[in-house]
Structures are given as structure tokens and as C-alpha cells.
């Protein structure tokens, strides 16, 4: 019989999160005897590249497509076309808009991930005066917006206009750019004492900037992702808390569902939350969290 073919399309080629996702999918595919095709957008936000990859995978005979959409809305027509051809489509990591454009969603809630660290920071600061810097992704990126808003909301801040948010910069999720952004924020207001970062490389960059002026002990950095490097940074006190997500789980669930569909014709449907866990070694009352030991056991990346 023909080997089941499954396509996995990630947002980009480079982000370790997606690289890990690919590894997880590869492993699951091997276990199930399926062939995995991989593709990605050319840059974060690149929808056209994902559409092209999708079409080529279907041309190659893929009957299931797993995709982390770069643009929740723009990808929809292509997905609908694919489904009309009898292909099962599962969104990983982030939903499409509308969510009904895919058969199933295995994802993590980025808004909630942001909210958790917001709540954590609020619990830590209480009524102490706070000056917040946010190191975001880049203009217009939905994940960046969700995490950012989630964080503010978790902290109890309505929007960006709030005086407590003293500096907002784009880090492009890149450590060097995050560092530059943080340095400039500190020039703007040296009294910043809480830093929200879009991901852990940006957090590491922020830490470098703080260390350079000797304030790394006084400033709290919170982040999102839960990669192994990130968790180790939590352990080392670089990051106070991070919201951990589970790309491996998304991928392996996706591959299993795909193989199942190809063999039995039964589609998986609905939303499966692969979960978010707050990882910190300094618990705060009222904010459920796990310690870094748990974090390291469940992290993605090189332990």
C-alpha cells in the first residue's frame, strides 16, 4: 500500500520552536510509518510561501496538512481549497480565523500565555510602583499582539496608553535586537523594573542590557515559550517566569491524527488545547505554576 504522506508547514525555517515541532513530527511519522514533507514561510508573516508549500505538498500526494498559519485569515482560502480536495487540515500552535477553516486545532493559547505571566508579575509587584518595558515581536504580528495584550490584561492594564508602560519596542524575537531595544528603553527610562519579552531569546537580550548597567538583580523579566534554554534561564534567575508551550505534543498529536485519517478515513475535529504552564522557581500566591524541574522535563530544545 502507499505510504501515508503528511505535510507539515511551519511559520519559518529558523525558530527553534518550529524546528522542535518538525523533529517531533518526524519522530511520530517514523513510528507510524508515514512520510513527512516539511515546508515553511520564507519569513515570519509570509503567507504566500505557506500557500505555495501547501499546494506543492498536495501535489506530492499529502492527505493531511499540519500548519502553523502565518496569517490566520489569509491562509483560509487555500485551506478551504485543500479540504475540498479531501485533504484533512489541522492547525498547530495558532488558530485560523475563522477557526472552522480547519478540521482541527492543536494549539496553545497565546493570549493566555501572556496573561499568566502578567498575573504572575502583578502578584509579585502588588501595589509597588511599576515601570514596564515590553519587547514585542514586530508590527502587525498576531502572535505578538496576543501575547502582549494577554500580558497587559493579566497585569490589569487596559491598553498601551497606560502610564505604567514606559517603553514598547520591537525585538523581532531576536536576542541581539532585543538587547538593543532594551538598552534604548533603559536610556529612555532607567527606572524600568518589569520587562515583558515576546520570547526567551529577547529575554536573554534584555538581561544582557540590564547586566551591563548592573540592574539585572532589581528588574523582573517575564517571558513566553518554555524552551529548554529559556527554562534554564529561569533556573539561573535570568527570567523570573515563563509560560511554557508544547510544540512536540502538537506535532505528534497532529501526525497521529493524520495517519489515522489516511488509514481509516476518520477525521479528527475540534480544538485540543495542548496547554500552557507557568514555569517559575519563585511561586506567587494565587498564580498556579510549576517549578523548573517540571519545566526542564517538558521543555523543547536541547536539555
Amino acid at each position, binding site marked *: 500500500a502507499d505510504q501515508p504522506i503528511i505535510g507539515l508547514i511551519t511559520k519559518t525555517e529558523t525558530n527553534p520552536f518550529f524546528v522542535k515541532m518538525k523533529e517531533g513530527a518526524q519522530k511520530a511519522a517514523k513510528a507510524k510509518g508515514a512520510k513527512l514533507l516539511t515546508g515553511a514561510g520564507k519569513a515570519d508573516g509570509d503567507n504566500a510561501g505557506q500557500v505555495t508549500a501547501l499546494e*506543492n505538498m498536495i*501535489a506530492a500526494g499529502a492527505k493531511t496538512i499540519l500548519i502553523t498559519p502565518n496569517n490566520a485569515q489569509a491562509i483560509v482560502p487555500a485551506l478551504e481549497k485543500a479540504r475540498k480536495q479531501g485533504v484533512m487540515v489541522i492547525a498547530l500552535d495558532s488558530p485560523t480565523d475563522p477557526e472552522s477553516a480547519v478540521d482541527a486545532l492543536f494549539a496553545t493559547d497565546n493570549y493566555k500565555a501572556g496573561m499568566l505571566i502578567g498575573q504572575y508579575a502583578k502578584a509579585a509587584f502588588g501595589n509597588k510602583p511599576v515601570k514596564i518595558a515590553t519587547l514585542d515581536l514586530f508590527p502587525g504580528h498576531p502572535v505578538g499582539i496576543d501575547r502582549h495584550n494577554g500580558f497587559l490584561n493579566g497585569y490589569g492594564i487596559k491598553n498601551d496608553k497606560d502610564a505604567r508602560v514606559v517603553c514598547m519596542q520591537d525585538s523581532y524575537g531576536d536576542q541581539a535586537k532585543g538587547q538593543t531595544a532594551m538598552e534604548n528603553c533603559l536610556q529612555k527610562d532607567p527606572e524600568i523594573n518589569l520587562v515583558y519579552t515576546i520570547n526567551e531569546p529577547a529575554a536573554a537580550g534584555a538581561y544582557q542590557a540590564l547586566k551591563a548597567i548592573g540592574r539585572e538583580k532589581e528588574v523582573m523579566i517575564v517571558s513566553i515559550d518554555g524552551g529548554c534554554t529559556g527554562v534554564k534561564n529561569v533556573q539561573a534567575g535570568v527570567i523570573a517566569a515563563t509560560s511554557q508551550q508544547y510544540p512536540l505534543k502538537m506535532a505528534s498529536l497532529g501526525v497521529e491524527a493524520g495517519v489515522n485519517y489516511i488509514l481509516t478515513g476518520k477525521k479528527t475535529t475540534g480544538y485540543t488545547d495542548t496547554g500552557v504552564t507557568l514555569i517559575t522557581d519563585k511561586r506567587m500566591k494565587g498564580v498556579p505554576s510549576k517549578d523548573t524541574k517540571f519545566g526542564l522535563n517538558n521543555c523543547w530544545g536541547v536539555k
Partner: protein
Amino acid sequence: MTIQNTSKARTTGGNPVLKRLNSLNLLGPIVALLLASAFFATQSDRFLSGQNFSLILQQVMVVGVMAIGQTLIILTAGIDLSCGMVMVLGTIVMTKLAVESGLNPILAIMAGALVSTAVGFLNGLLVTRIKLPPFIVTLGTYNIAFAITQIYSNAQTQTGLPAALTFFGNTFHIGGTAITYGTVLMIVLYIVVWIFLTETAPGRHIYAVGNNPEAARLTGIPTNRVLLGVYTMAGLIYSVAGLLLVSRTGVGDPNAGATDNLDTITAVVLGGTSLFGGRGMIFGTLLGALIVGVFRNGLTLTGVPSVYQILITGILVILAVAADQLTRKKA
């Protein structure tokens, strides 16, 4: 640079068709395309099908149309880094006006085209009036168009487009193969621009200006008007590419187009057009775009992981141009 001059004494003995293709700089790209296709045909039995080719055409459609504008500009020894962003700005204007303001779709399309054309015109003004290098001008307008797109769209994707905006995504059938109107439009555009470049005076003036602007001016060719015209026309062509993008994806996406600058330039150069201006052939650009599309499609069909696809693409870009260069030297 000397680099390109080595190809100056070029004549192929023998077959007159080959000779003609060679003198048009098309032999290299055609050989590269055929070799790649032959290779992938042996690797995957899905490659050689009308439907797959129709797919590849659709995939190169947007970059292929944009690359027409890029070719015009490169023929004048310029370069356009802003093309992807200018296109996207146009699509956002079209879709936002049509969806949010409920403007008649045809008017919305025209408004979007007007905006893209205006940015092209601005590029042209800066290049001709203030004599700025095109690289810098378009780097600037790249950033400007990107920022305006984000601000105007509020980073929101426009959905629920009226049918007129996605017309070119519709298909018709030829012998069971579905072909989109968009690819037809692309081919038509190539033919029109080809006629323009080879059969009309303004078209030949573009080559002359790219070759030696001072000589062109002394001969009475209105150099600045030619340049301004080219940049403006390119803007208009980008808006057509934008319409095709909208047709293909069914949405107005403010984050599209970011990497299209390099893609169009790659298509132009793979197609044998000199970055130093004055030499090239518009169909080469189409071939260049197809080469990239065929590789992307073929490598996926053969199941090469995407990182390795990038590696192979890098090597192949070099090989394709090297083969072109070497065949020319021999000849």
C-alpha cells in the same frame, strides 16, 4: 564591471534558432529550465502533468508579474527594493476600500492601482529630479510603504472580499487542466511588455538609457522622462501583481510581500538580464521565475526537507547563472 563584458563576442555556429536564443540571452535559462524539469520528471511521476504545471504557473504568477516591473527598472540600470511593499500597499487600499468602505470593487481596484502607481512615480521623481541612486530611493520607499501599510491597515487582514476582487483566481478548463485567469493575465502582460520593449520607440529608449544615459540624452532621448515613465509603469504593474495576489489568497494581507524584492531580482537575473542595465529580454524574466517555481515544486514533490531545499536553491541559483555564463563564453 568587466565581469559581464566577457560575453560580448557571442555567436553560435550552427542552428539558427539556438543562435537567436543565444543572442537574446535566452539559451541559458531555457536549458536550465529544461534540465531541471527533466530531472524532476525522473524523480517524481507527479511532476509531469498539466495540472502540476498550471500549479507552478499560479505560484509564480505574483512574483512573475512584479518581476516585469523590476525588469524594466533593471534595464535602465536601476533596481527596485520597494516592489513587494508597493504591491502590498496597493492590495490593502483595494481591499480595505472595498470591504470596510463598501466602495464599488472596480473603483477600489483603481484606487489601489493609483496608490501603487503613485509610489512608483515618487520613486521615479526622486531618481530623476534629485538624482538619487535607485537603491537608496527604493530602500526608503520600502520602509515608507511598509509603515503606511501597517498603519493604514492597522495590521488587520481584510477578508470577505467582493467577487470582483478575486476574479483572476477563477479557473477555466483546457482538457481537464484547471487554469486560472490570473496566469493568463500574466502571460498576456509579458507579451504586451515584450512588444512594447522590442517594437516601440519608447521601449528601445529604455535600453538606450540603460546602456549609456549620456549618449541617450545627446541623441535627443528624453532620459528623465523615460526613467520617470519606467518607475511609474513599474508601480502600475505592481498593482496588477497585487490584484493577482488578492485573487490568489482571497484576502488583503498587510504582511505579504516582504521577501518579494529579492525574489523578483532573482527572477530577472536568472533570466539573463544584466544588472548593469541595457541588456536583457523580458521573457528571460518569466523563465527565471519559472526556474525558481519548478525547483520549489520539484523539491517538495521529491520530499526534500525544507532546509535542504534552501541549500539546494542556493547552489542552483549559482549553477544556473554559471551555466549561462559558460555557454556564452564557449559560443
